[in-house]
């Protein structure tokens, strides 16, 4: 800049572009010449104001390209879903045939390898969905939040829009020194991240990622998911206690109160869904939502008048609270408690807390689409040419986006208002909702 200001004042101000062909070039040249010092030297030559860029956004090449890429991604994913089809069923076809063959008159091989392989396949799919998805959800969050805030977010690592940024961060966290306070409770401090992380892996077992694509088709799936996710609270409280830090302790206590409280309306809001489906099995809940009214409106529980919407909203709010995210991120309220219960965690232990949060976001989104949006059911009859897992992942991703959206829009609740909101608003309404569902059961 010093060079620019001391430059010779010889060049006359460039004339305004009269009739430039490309509007983008016109915008650029206007911007370039507007910033002049009184000595005629150029200053701030390549600085663009929002007023320049927003004059007509469609004039900008990058804007058009972005729209095209977005369209291409949607079309490409749809085509991919159409081509690959129901691979869940395909795999299961081989599995069944092998079992038939093994149980036939001349069994060459025992049936347990097939069972083991089948469990392995399902386990690998579920594990990958949690772990890989965690990686990409972090990247996604960073990009989306960046664009909501007129930033760019990670842009370099991996070449295309920084898509490998989270992987690089993960490697960094793995290699990082595990700094911890010396007067911590050594055992509990190490136990807490594991206690938080393991339940999220277990939680995904009964979630149907499409038709027949559940790792374990449990009859008490709903109960199991809520029970498992409840264990994580213990880990958070332990982390707060074992860190020997006052902020951590406050964060841990807050989260204990919050998570335990919000589990009540969350479970009660599902009661009408379970009553309508007649089963606690997640697969059967999905099966109960198949079909269309008048051939157009899908029979999803969210479309059941009154009861569906109330359940959905209560479950959505309680899920955001359960995942410790804004506007309910009281346990880790950074402006008050530095980082809450994970203040004293670093390296991979911190990464586990982080990964768990995104795992729960994905779980909550998956449960939302399972309970209320028909799981893998297509929104319109003719759209069922696309496989069920495509619809399931699409809906889940939409809800995951909603979680990010909330986070970057809302401020944080105060801790006592949070409790009021739960006990005085959500819980009574979830009880009232049990009354509203009664007429449906008699119809």
């Amino acid at each position, binding site marked *: 800049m010093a060079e620019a200001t001391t430059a010779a004042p010889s060049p006359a101000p460039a004339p305004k572009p009269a009739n430039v062909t490309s509007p983008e070039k016109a915008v650029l040249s206007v911007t370039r010449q507007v*910033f002049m010092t009184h000595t005629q030297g150029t*200053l*701030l030559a390549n600085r663009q*104001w*929002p007023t320049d860029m927003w004059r007509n956004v469609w004039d900008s090449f990058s804007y058009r390209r972005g729209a095209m890429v977005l369209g291409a991604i949607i079309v490409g994913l749809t085509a991919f879903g159409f081509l690959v089809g129901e691979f869940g069923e395909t795999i299961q076809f081989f599995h069944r045939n092998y079992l038939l063959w093994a149980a036939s008159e001349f069994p060459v091989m025992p049936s347990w390898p097939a069972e083991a392989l089948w469990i392995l396949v399902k386990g690998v799919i579920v594990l990958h969905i949690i772990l890989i998805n965690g990686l990409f959800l972090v990247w996604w969050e960073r990009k989306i939040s960046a664009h909501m805030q*007129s930033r760019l977010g990670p842009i370099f690592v991996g070449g295309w829009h920084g898509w490998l940024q989270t992987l690089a961060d993960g490697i960094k966290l793995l290699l990082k020194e595990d700094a911890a306070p010396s007067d911590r409770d050594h055992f509990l401090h190490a136990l807490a991240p594991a206690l938080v992380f393991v339940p999220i892996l277990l939680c995904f077992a009964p979630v149907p990622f499409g038709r027949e694509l559940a790792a374990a088709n449990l009859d008490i799936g709903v109960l199991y998911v809520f029970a498992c996710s409840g264990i994580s609270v213990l880990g958070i409280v332990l982390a707060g206690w074992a860190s020997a830090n*006052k902020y951590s302790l406050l964060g841990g206590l807050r989260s204990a109160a919050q998570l335990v409280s919000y589990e009540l309306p969350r479970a009660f809001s599902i009661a009408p869904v379970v009553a309508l489906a007649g089963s606690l099995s997640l697969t059967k809940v999905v099966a109960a939502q198949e079909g269309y009214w008048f051939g157009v409106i899908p029979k999803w529980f969210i479309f059941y008048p009154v009861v569906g919407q109330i359940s959905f909203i209560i479950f959505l709010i309680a899920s955001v609270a359960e995942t410790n995210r804004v506007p309910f991120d009281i346990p880790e309220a950074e*402006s*008050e408690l530095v980082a809450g219960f994970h203040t004293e965690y670093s390296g991979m232990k911190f990464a586990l807390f982080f990964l768990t949060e995104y795992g729960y976001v994905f779980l909550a989104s998956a449960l939302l689409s399972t309970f209320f949006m028909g799981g893998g059911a297509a929104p319109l009859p003719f759209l069922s040419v696309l496989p069920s897992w495509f619809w399931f992942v699409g809906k889940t991703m939409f809800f995951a986006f909603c979680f990010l959206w909330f986070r970057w829009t809302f401020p*944080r609740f105060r801790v006592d208002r949070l409790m009021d909101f739960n006990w005085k608003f959500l819980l009574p309404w979830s009880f009232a909702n049990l009354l509203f569902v009664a007429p449906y059961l008699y119809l």
Partner: protein
Amino acid sequence: MTEIRSQDLGERIRENQQEKFSDSLKPATRNPQPATSLKTDQMFVNLGPQHPSTHGVLRLALTLDGEVIIRAEPDVGYLHRGTEKLSEVRGYHHCVVMTDRWDYVSAMPNNLVFCLASEKLLNLQVPERAEYLRVIMCELNRLASHLLFFGTYGIDIGAFTPFLHAFREREMVLDLFEMVCGARMTFNYIRIGGVAQDLPQSWIEKCKEFLGYFKFRLKEYDDLLSFNPIFMDRTKNVGLITPRQAVDWGLSGPNIRGSGVPYDVRKTDPYSVYGKLDFEVCVGESGSCWDRYYVRMREMAQSVRLVEHCLNALPSGDIVAKGVAKMPKPMPGEAYAHVEGSRGDLGIYLVSDGSFSPYRMHVRAPSYINLAILQEALVGLKVSDMIAVLGSIDIVLGEVDR
């Protein structure tokens, strides 16, 4: 820190100190409890100086009962650079440079107040164009400062996005400053007797473009944060400061106006050309955090109005008074000048002994005086409310410690 301004307040402080004593002797006397109940204890938390929401190096020594604050003591001085003392060995022009470093978020009013005091000592008549330029710069700087407040207050309350939206607009103000004086933070633009430079080419158009753009952004801020139910829940009826309290503790700026006291130096003691300009003093209702916040938001609209008015009425002519010496040497005497800075009543007291440098300089820093009320306003609040109150007082530690 504890300056006793009134009878009832003095009693309150004495009570507080007595409690301190009894607390140290018998910790459980505060909440006498049956012997069978759980043993509870108070917790002492050092909030800062390395805490994300103390906006710098403020240390708050908090005593907590659960999450309720029972005692709060602001501790300052971590950023002390001794500019008042330094001024005693520097010439008047050199002191203007140091004023930039007090309230580095809004440095133009700092420049202005020192120059006003020096001009009183030197009996200088500032040309009218320079006066208008000073007002334009001060009001633009108020915009920049309030935008920073808006963004950081959102972060305090937990909303991150408004911060970067505010900074997008703040960048434009800083660009305007950069065009005028080459600096984005420490301007040294307003000089004794006038201003440093005239406006560059096409600056006025650029400024008008910004103002037109900014008016719509104010509406956006209201949608995004001001009238957000969660935000209002966090800040309305929180950290109430009564008008009496506000006057007792010597608050100024948006903090006292938030309590409903229409005290604005621009109106009560007009300096520069504010007497000729038309604007309204924004006043809050209840003295809550939200009122203090929203006073600032409305002040931004007023600043836009003022800048537009000044740009239209900008006369031509000189920008520096005639006969400003390179090393001014005023007659022995003293002068006090105060302006409405972005954070309140910013005053400066200069004593000259007839030499090249001031004999004594004293700064009435609004942040420092506003900060003192925390020890009374925070008691009885929760920790999360503490953040809301501290944010709404809007301190800049550079000015607190000088």
